């Protein structure tokens, strides 16, 4: 399967294309941009979790010097003020009702941010507080106050028939899927274990908070510079809201200071564009870190898992029931609950499976995509319970997993892509690296966990590759550079196919007026999907070069090869510039190649077959300070099956970052609410991992069998290694202490309480 190597550029840790810009301060992010005549927008946010807006008095605010306009929802009669990828449930500014603390209710446009802030304080809003539901329990209680009372409207990326809200409740979507005999499979199980787990609300904390800059031209065209992971989704939203043809909207994305899913789908772009239209001037909206906490977060979840096993260790039946709290607006929540539950049962062969998940509205910051997309919540539960099952069967947890692993090529779900990697090899590597079979020191515990995740499907990526007259290359791709190094990888792919040095390849940044369609930079899909599109586009150029050369060299195409900027064959060699002169009859013109990857819909349960399976294993060695409950991660090993690393250093960087981010929600991070009030929307009180949280040993290993669906046998990386972190740590702690943890994060106090309870009850 592995394409004949060796590769020249692929598989090498070439320097990031943007590295020099980033270490010299030249890299430009959204808030580094400005345009002449630009106004600054600031948002007034609701202090209430749920309130009716009786009136908004903007007179005094409007009179503030330096203020251009003060805007509330009543000013948006000229457009469709609602947006959202699943449901169009989110207004530009709160209409009649504010549904979470921090929801924007009014906006000030000012010549400078200071004037905006002064005016913001002068807006008088008369609120009538309404009963709020701020937890899953409250939201699902019979007769609970409703976050949304109006009929849902399908969003821009979903038809309503696929969405299943439950009228009269806070449930905005439900998903069920069964395999084999579903829950009836438990009848034949010899051992049944069941437990409940919760996963906290956590914040992406991209170092760069969201921002957008919008400008309309005199002909009604719109340009938006956006810190978004998917400019084309943003474009569709804007086109629908403002009734503008797609071709008249230009979304340009500079470098992103981190994304992690928090910058998928429209966030600030709709309000910024609407404000710019009202003002007749360009508008920039750059929110603070504190406001980012009020923009999007990971969905918290509670999960019930039941596992049935046969005496011989076969996992026989599994049932997972998950409630995801999507906050006040659905965002992409309905897809998260589907995707998260879909692979809840992990990389195991289980004949009978019943899965149920639902997305639930609450009066809190909207939940959205976050690295792992619903899978971390489920893996935390399933992988924890699987260890308990192993203990009950007196089986080694690694061995029990190994016995049940799906094999390469095996079907996971009818109609979906067969397993495209080797879980066994990954598990073996992880167990070996953590010295699983050797006894741990008395004060250490070891744990493992696995995960598999589908990428988004159906899906589309298109790319253009241009070979210029001097033999240099430009890749046009709408993949967003948010730190993951995608642009470097795409350049490597083009350089590999076209046999040019990487320094000769540029990658044009996302601009919907220039770079072709790409669905999204998320779901670990860019290397695979855009990578293939770029590979195909470069291949298109290569074929053109060969055809031109064939005319000169007088050889069949099959005898021609590309080497270092030349086409070679039959002892002759022709440089690309010469071939272009040959083609165009002069020193001008360029070759353009096009690549399209669009696998389309399928009969798979989620409507499309995953382009690849993301596969990862985590293994942790932990210690605990019994007196304080503080957990230390001594060692962490992550193994990801990536088919082929295009850029090994970047793969490592992705996984090291993923593990640390995973340790964040495992040990430290949680957005704390009191009623509807978020108590810690800042880094003093919300603790993200810092350098001192690095495990003493952190190793990220890779399984490479060249069997990925992407270019050169590669496939996606980046989300997978985050997912096993919490169950690996939880399992290690359970083996060390005998206490099973079901709630995250594992703060010292939480661990201390559990250990104290164990001491009271005696040994487990």
């Amino acid at each position, binding site marked *: 399967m592995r394409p004949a190597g060796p590769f020249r550029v692929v598989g090498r840790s070439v320097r990031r294309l943007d590295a020099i810009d980033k270490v010299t301060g030249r890299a430009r992010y959204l808030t580094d941009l400005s345009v002449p005549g630009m106004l600054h927008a600031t948002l007034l946010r609701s202090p209430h979790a749920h309130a009716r807006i009786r009136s908004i008095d903007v007179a005094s605010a409007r009179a503030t010097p330096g203020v251009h306009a003060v805007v509330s929802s009543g000013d948006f009669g000229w457009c469709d003020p609602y947006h959202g990828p699943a449901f169009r449930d989110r207004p530009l500014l709160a209409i009649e009702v504010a549904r979470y603390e921090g929801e924007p209710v009014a906006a000030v446009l000012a010549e400078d941010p200071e004037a905006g802030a002064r005016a913001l304080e002068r807006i008088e809003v008369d609120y009538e507080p309404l009963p709020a539901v701020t937890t899953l329990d409250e939201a699902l209680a019979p007769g609970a106050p409703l976050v949304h009372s109006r009929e849902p409207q399908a969003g821009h990326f979903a038809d309503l028939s696929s969405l299943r809200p439950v009228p009269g409740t806070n449930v905005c979507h439900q998903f069920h899927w069964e395999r084999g005999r579903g829950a009836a499979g438990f009848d034949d199980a010899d051992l049944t274990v069941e437990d409940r787990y919760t996963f906290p609300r956590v914040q992406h904390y991209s170092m760069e908070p969201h921002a957008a800059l919008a400008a309309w031209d005199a002909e009604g065209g719109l340009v938006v510079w956006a810190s978004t992971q998917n400019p084309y989704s943003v474009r569709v939203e804007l086109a629908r809201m403002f009734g503008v043809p797609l071709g008249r909207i230009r979304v340009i994305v500079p470098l992103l200071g981190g994304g992690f899913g928090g910058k998928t789908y429209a966030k600030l772009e709709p309000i910024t564009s609407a404000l710019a239209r009202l003002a007749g001037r360009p508008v920039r909206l750059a929110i603070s870190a504190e406001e980012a906490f009020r923009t999007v977060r990971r969905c918290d979840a509670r999960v019930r898992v039941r596992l049935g096993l046969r005496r011989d260790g076969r996992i026989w039946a599994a049932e997972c029931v998950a409630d995801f709290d999507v906050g006040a607006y659905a965002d992409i929540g309905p897809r998260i609950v589907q995707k998260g539950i879909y692979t809840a049962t992990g990389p195991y062969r289980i004949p009978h499976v019943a899965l149920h998940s639902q997305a639930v509205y609450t009066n809190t910051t909207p939940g959205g995509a976050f690295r792992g997309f619903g899978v971390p919540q489920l893996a935390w539960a399933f992988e924890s319970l699987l260890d308990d099952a192993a203990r009950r069967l007196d089986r080694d947890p690694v061995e029990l997993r190994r016995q049940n692993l799906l094999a390469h090529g095996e079907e996971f779900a009818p109609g979906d892509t067969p397993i495209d990697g080797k879980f066994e090899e990954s598990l073996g590597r992880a167990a070996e690296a953590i010295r699983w079979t050797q006894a741990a020191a008395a004060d250490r515990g070891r744990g493992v966990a696995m995960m598999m995740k589908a990428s988004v499907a159906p899906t589309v990526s298109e790319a253009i590759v241009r070979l210029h007259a001097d033999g240099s290359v430009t890749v046009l791709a709408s993949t967003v550079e948010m730190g993951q190094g995608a642009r470097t990888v795409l350049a490597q792919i083009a350089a590999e196919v076209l046999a040019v040095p990487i320094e000769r390849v540029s990658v044009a940044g996302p601009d919907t007026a220039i770079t072709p369609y790409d669905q999204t930079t998320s779901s670990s899909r860019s290397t695979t999907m855009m990578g293939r599109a770029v590979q195909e586009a470069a291949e298109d150029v290569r074929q053109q070069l060969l055809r031109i050369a064939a005319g000169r060299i007088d050889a069949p195409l099959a005898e021609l090869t590309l080497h270092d900027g030349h086409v070679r064959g039959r002892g002759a060699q022709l440089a690309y510039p010469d071939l272009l002169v040959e083609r165009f009859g002069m020193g001008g013109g360029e070759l353009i190649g096009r690549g399209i990857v669009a696998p389309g819909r399928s009969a798979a349960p989620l409507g499309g077959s995953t382009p690849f399976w993301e596969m990862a294993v985590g293994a942790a060695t932990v210690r605990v300070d019994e007196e*304080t409950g503080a957990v230390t991660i001594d060692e962490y090993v992550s193994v990801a099956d990536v088919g082929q690393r295009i850029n090994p250093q970047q793969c490592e960087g992705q996984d090291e970052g993923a593990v640390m981010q995973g340790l964040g929600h495992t040990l430290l991070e949680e957005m704390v609410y009191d009623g509807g009030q978020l108590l810690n929307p800042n880094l003093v009180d919300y603790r993200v991992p810092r350098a001192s949280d690095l495990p003493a040993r952190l190793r990220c290993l890779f399984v490479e069998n060249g069997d990925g669906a992407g270019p050169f046998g590669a496939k996606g990386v980046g989300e997978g290694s985050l997912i096993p972190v919490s169950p690996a740590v939880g399992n290690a702690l359970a083996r060390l202490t005998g206490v099973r943890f079901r709630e995250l994060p594992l703060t010292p106090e939480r661990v201390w309480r559990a250990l104290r309870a164990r001491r009271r009850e005696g040994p487990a």
Partner: protein
Amino acid sequence: MLRPFELRRPATLPELGAILGEHRDAAALYAGGSELLVLMKEGLVRPRVLIDVKRVAGLGEIAAADGTLRIGAAVTHRTVERSPVVHAHCPLVAEAARFVANVRVRSVGTVGGNLAFADPHSDLATLYLLFDARVALWSGAGGERELPLADFVRGPYETARRDDEVLTEVRLHPLPPGAAGAYLKFGVHERPTLGVAAALSLDPARRRVAAARLAVGCIGARPQRLAGLERGLVGAPVEALAAARVDAGAEGLDAITDLHGSADYKLEMAQVFVRRALRLAAARGMRQDIDARYAHTVAV
């Protein structure tokens, strides 16, 4: 983003006193600004006048004389960390300065600012209590008054400083010769959940406690000494320190439930870290090396 203010930069205390006397609570004393400017950016504090105390003669000095180490209010944590005088007289104070917040805060943040702000999760005061710290407050009307740091800090963000007063220096009393101290702070948040300072003098045979000092902070409204336990430990064999227990009720030790944790957990952690600090101080007193590395804990 800050709102406009008038910046005044007096060079002497009388000048400062005059400005403060004029503006009272419309003025804010400003040194490093590491706490104040954050509140001002949030709009929670909006002084009309900012009085920069950094240029006031004497406030930036460190001096030791007559058994007292005097640290000027405008001395930065960075300066304390590097000061040979502080190292000579209160080494624990110099070492702990290395662990205040982060390197940027230490560059600009000052001892006086920290104490006067009285953030309950700021731990400088806890350590200073170990040194029987007293603070000097000066006003144009009344001149200087000195009061124990323990009385100066009244509660969260509240001190005994009057509107017309400026904190000029803190006066520390170095541990007696032969005494050994330790300071531990614990927590996973940006700021400590708990700070415990301990100092022990041992008898000549290094078997029993001759004198003990203990301070606990961050868990409650204000840091405090544990006078009862200090007395109770006198004469105790060193081995008994592992079983030392704070009688929270008798000591008036309280804890607040907040984002750092529940009150009962914090009180229990106070017990744990009092034992650990005593053990570390005793080991140092006996010139022994012990492993004092605990998770999420700074030990100096």
